[in-house]
């Protein structure tokens, strides 16, 4: 593969696929920040829970109990990961965030609480699953699609397709449903939204559930790509934070653009500078963004009609 155009297209494709993985992990983070004005440090562990839920569904439940063949089992596992993430989000919301809100806690206490949840989840998974890596193979990861000299695994195509579908679904939800509009209203001004009759506690709980469900699906997509251990989510969360910061805190469009940009920049950094410099380049970009355009890549709209 020495033809420059082929190489350029191939690395762009690699970058978009990688970027989609980052976007899937980062979307939930930015959603929570946008509504609650809060960073969820346990987000990486939600991703890991989703990955394990998908693993056990695909390799144990779907194949051995239901007798579904490999590809079907893996696709089913995406839904189980979504469900596992949503359930976990609801539990954490009910057990941690809601009581803290009721007690009138400042912003610091929920932040510390998320660190506690993260430690609990990580060590809980370590106790349950052990530290030895699990081999999570998606049948799609073994299939490679080729167009001339270009190649892409079927798993990568699935990642892009699911990410696009998730983004479209989320966008449609936020734009065209009452709850979506209520969510945006609470994100803009919680007090006024409450005065307008919106149940802010319900909206906040829903936000956390949606964000956690997205994290779960991200885990299911990640599982066949990474080394699956209780620390899997942690390996991507730093890049996810970079997406959120570069894209603009709480700005979904910005997060999506930033995620794809980071993925593509990483791919070309590997090609021309070396894989050892990936982190340097990405975080240099982050610092530059904070200095030049601290609000993020996509400008935040101040007014909009709900």
């Amino acid at each position: 593969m020495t033809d420059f155009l082929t190489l350029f297209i191939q690395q762009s494709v690699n970058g978009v696929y990688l970027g989609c993985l980052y976007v899937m992990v980062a979307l939930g983070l930015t959603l929570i920040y946008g509504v609650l004005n809060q960073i969820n440090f346990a987000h990486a562990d939600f991703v890991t829970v989703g990955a394990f839920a998908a693993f056990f569904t695909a390799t144990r439940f779907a194949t051995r109990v239901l007798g579904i063949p490999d590809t079907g089992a893996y696709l089913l596992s995406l839904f189980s990961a979504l469900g596992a993430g949503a359930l976990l989000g609801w539990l954490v919301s009910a057990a941690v965030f809601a009581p803290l809100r009721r007690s009138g806690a400042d912003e610091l206490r929920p932040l510390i609480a998320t660190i506690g949840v993260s430690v609990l989840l990580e060590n809980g998974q370590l106790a349950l699953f052990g530290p030895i890596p699990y081999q999570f193979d998606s049948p799609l990861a073994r299939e490679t699609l080729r167009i001339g000299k270009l190649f892409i695994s079927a798993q990568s195509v699935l990642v892009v397709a699911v990410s696009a579908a998730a983004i479209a679904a989320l966008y449609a939800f936020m734009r065209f449903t009452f709850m979506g509009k209520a969510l945006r209203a609470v994100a803009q001004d919680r007090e006024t939204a409450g005065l307008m009759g919106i149940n802010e506690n319900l909206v906040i709980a829903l936000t956390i559930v949606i964000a956690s469900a997205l994290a779960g699906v991200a885990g299911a997509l990640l599982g066949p790509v990474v080394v699956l251990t209780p620390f899997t989510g942690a390996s991507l969360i730093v890049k996810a934070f970079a997406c959120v910061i570069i894209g603009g805190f709480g700005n979904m469009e910005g997060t999506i653009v930033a995620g794809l940009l980071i993925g593509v920049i990483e791919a070309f950094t590997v090609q021309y500078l070396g894989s050892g410099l990936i982190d340097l380049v990405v975080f240099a970009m982050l610092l530059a963004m904070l200095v030049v355009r601290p609000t993020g890549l996509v400008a935040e709209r101040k007014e909009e009609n709900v």
Partner: protein
Amino acid sequence: MKHLFRSFIAILACAALPLAVQSQDKVIRVGVLMPISGPGSYFGVMGKEGIDLALEQVAKTDLKGTKLQVQYEDSACSPLQATNTVKRVLDQFKPHIVIGEECSDATLAIAPILEQAKVVQLNAGSVTMKLTESGYKYVFRIFPNAEQQSAPLVKVAREKLKAQTAVILYEKTNAGNDNAEGFEKPFVAAGGKVLAKIDFGRDVNDFTAIATRIASLGKVDVLPTFALEGQQVRLSQALAQARVVKGGGGSGVQMGSIWLPWGYDQKAGKAAIGYVRIVQFDPTEKRKIVQDFIKAFQAKYGADKTPTHINAHAYDALLLVAEAVRRGAKDSEGIRSQFSKFKDVEVTTGRITFDQKGQNSDLSVVHFVETQPDLSWKGMSWQ
């Protein structure tokens, strides 16, 4: 009457004291520093399995009345945590010998502390040259170092595989760096050309971009790789997708060292076909000590589990301590003295003869294997 009773108790206490002192003398305290938490914890789990099994086996033998007392401590593969842990262990447990650590960075961090405390460090998992090249008198290592692992790879690459070009892939750690250098220097000296040296952190998950880059470099004959199993699986799969390696229809031969445990081939699937590597612990080896170890391991941990080299090296480390005690070692100096005299002591991972730097110099069981199309190993006659 009270006075008589108190005197009786005092006499009893005095009589017991030499017994207590004697029983203290009859214990060899073994500190084990392994990563039990964090991403490296799978080393610790496997290491503990090996040592626990060894303790059971040693208990069935005669150690001349001496007991081995083992205390596990978590060093998390982290130089900082390893340093703090070893200081605490030295202060509280006062070990005669420390087995550990697994990760080269953490191993190097504790070496000078143990050297200063005059406590023997027996390493069974680190590769870095710096450990035995730094002049420590109390360090011993049974794991082949970077040069011992890379030199045979270069020889086979040039002489058997007729490789002209290489791309070296390695994790960004002391271990990875040393192995990569250990391959590069002699390969270039023998007339080969290194097209690229590609390093990556342990948090890198996707290797598609790296595989694409390698594919753009032209014909690559060999790809020596130094990474942990999880990353190695993903890397091999990406290289196969990019049609760089044999397993993907390319011509490049992936080469590896003893980092990769038994079972890697099944995990990587077809991408592993044609993979050439050196192994030290080979479960298919017919030596009685190896087969006995596997039987005992499966009896304890399950018939479906095959031990890895991590289990085996940890097992051997504890057996060597027992052997030193059997030969008369009563303390750290005694252990050090006995280790220095070891010649051809047979263990599951071969034979042990420590050189002047404390490195095991016997590589007689190290041999090459190639992954076959059915994902089994085929032993090669190269040495």
